[in-house]
């Protein structure tokens, strides 16, 4: 485990070292590029303030991501059973992914106010589609033999779905979750940027307008950490939900 991570850790340390040294060597203004040590100090000194904002972000991201998973699942089931709806809705979902959020976010704030709603909606808008897509492709990857077997036993469409398609989509679904999780916090911060009372997005905006690049980077680092933690959580869910010794489909 450690040995597997070692090259990445060494490289990361190297990058940080080069950054630190070049900040000192080039005498870069901390307004423009603070050294990593400066960022770490800033993170430590302002930890309680940053934590307060991070909690707000965590709540929105958590709520949005959970709802997104729920909706994606419900939608995927509905679309699985209604091919017409699938053909009608999927192109619209694709189009929804091509909308530049940077333009939409302020409008969403205007439409839905400063509360949770627009932020949660934005997180859903960003994270819903990858999960939905991977669930549907997971269902489609169900080995036909499994479906055939169940039908020949007299199973209903719903039983087939529940007993074959859903478990078969587990791996694909987790892959989709991983993609979406990468964007959950980024999307939340983004939404906060357009309007919020609290949150890392607001904190970053404030830090930026106060010319505190060190605090900006501290918040950036924290949000990256949060994302990595979410990815780690998904990894644990993966492990825990795994049935049998590596159900590999490429075996």
């Amino acid at each position, binding site marked *: 485990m450690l040995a597997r991570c070692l090259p990445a850790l060494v490289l990361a340390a190297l990058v940080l070292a080069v950054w630190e040294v070049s900040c000192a060597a080039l005498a870069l203004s901390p307004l423009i590029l603070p050294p990593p040590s400066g960022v770490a100090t800033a993170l430590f000194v302002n930890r309680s303030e940053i934590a307060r904002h991070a909690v707000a972000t965590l709540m929105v991201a958590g709520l949005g991501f959970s709802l997104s998973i729920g909706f994606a699942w419900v939608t995927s089931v509905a679309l699985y059973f209604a091919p017409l709806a699938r053909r009608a809705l999927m192109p619209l979902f694709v189009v929804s992914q091509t909308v530049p959020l940077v333009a939409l976010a302020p409008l969403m704030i205007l439409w839905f106010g400063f509360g949770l709603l627009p932020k949660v909606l934005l997180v859903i808008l960003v994270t819903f589609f990858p999960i939905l897509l991977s669930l549907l492709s997971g269902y489609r990857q169900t080995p036909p033999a499994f479906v055939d077997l169940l039908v020949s036993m007299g199973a209903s469409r719903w039983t087939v779905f529940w007993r074959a398609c859903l478990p078969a989509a587990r791996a694909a679904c987790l892959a989709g979750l991983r993609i979406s999780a990468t964007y959950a916090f980024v999307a939340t911060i983004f939404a906060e940027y357009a309007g919020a009372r609290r949150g890392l997005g607001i904190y970053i905006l404030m830090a930026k307008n*106060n010319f505190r690049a060190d605090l900006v980077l501290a918040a950036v680092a924290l949000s990256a950490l949060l994302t990595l933690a979410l990815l780690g959580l998904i990894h644990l869910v993966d492990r825990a939900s795994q049935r049998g010794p590596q159900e590999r489909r490429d075996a």
Partner: protein
Amino acid sequence: QTAALREVTMALDWTLNTNHIGLVVAKEKGFYADAGLAVDLLPYSDTSSTALLAAGIADFAYLTSLGFMGAKAGGADIVALWATMQHETGRLVYNSDNTAITRPADLTGKTYAGFGSNWEAALIGTMIENDGGDATYDTVTLGTGAYEALAAGAVDFTLEVATWEGVNGTLLGRKQSSFAYSDYGIPDQQNGYIGARSETLAQAPDLVAAFMQATQAGYVWAADHPKEAARLLIATGDFPNPALVEGSLDMIAAGGYLRDGDTAVGSIDPERFEKMATFLFDTNVLTGAGGVPLEWPGTVSDWYDQSWMGQ
């Protein structure tokens, strides 16, 4: 205070700064609470305060002069209740070591760090032309990044608020020079309006009066006690440089920005208001839906309403 306070939201035009001092004072010193209000100062965000006000997200908003005029012309049903700064605080700023710039006419062909509104082009263009130059220059829209870009020499000039970025530049030892708008044919104007929706004013005049009177009390107190006000503001916000807040409030107090002679703090001067509006219509800054320049409405006296002061 046992009675439940009435919740009121206030949107800001920029990150919290000394322009907002009266709001912070009124909040911290309990003027709002005394008026039965719990005021929530919304953090500055990517959505303009004028839009937040017009959309009904915020009950009140601090508005840049042009933000207000532009939205009003665009058909937003909002009204100005107050003008914070009795004189123009904005100015055109450039680096002193940029010897190519000595007067606005030299700005031809230079690079401007802008904020993305029509008004800037009209302002700068008029200044250059009135100085005998050609109003062609390069605009880079940078928003809040403009000031660092100027300090780094990446752009040639931008607009700043003298009592904020100007003080900051001085404190940081930046050698910067500026042109005053009014020296080059731009009518002098008041700045920093506080507005509400006409609907709010019509339906809840009491609320508007209570809020505005407490706000006024806050600004009056700040004008009288700049040092204490600075301390209050520093305590509420994340200001990396407390000297900036102190210096800025000193400048505001000394410059008579809040209190102009014996007019009440926050009063709107109809004459200058109309002059500015006329200028904006004449320079085609104000456009309606479809981008067509607007017709002069005859009068703009219904764009502001300070009846709350009389109550």
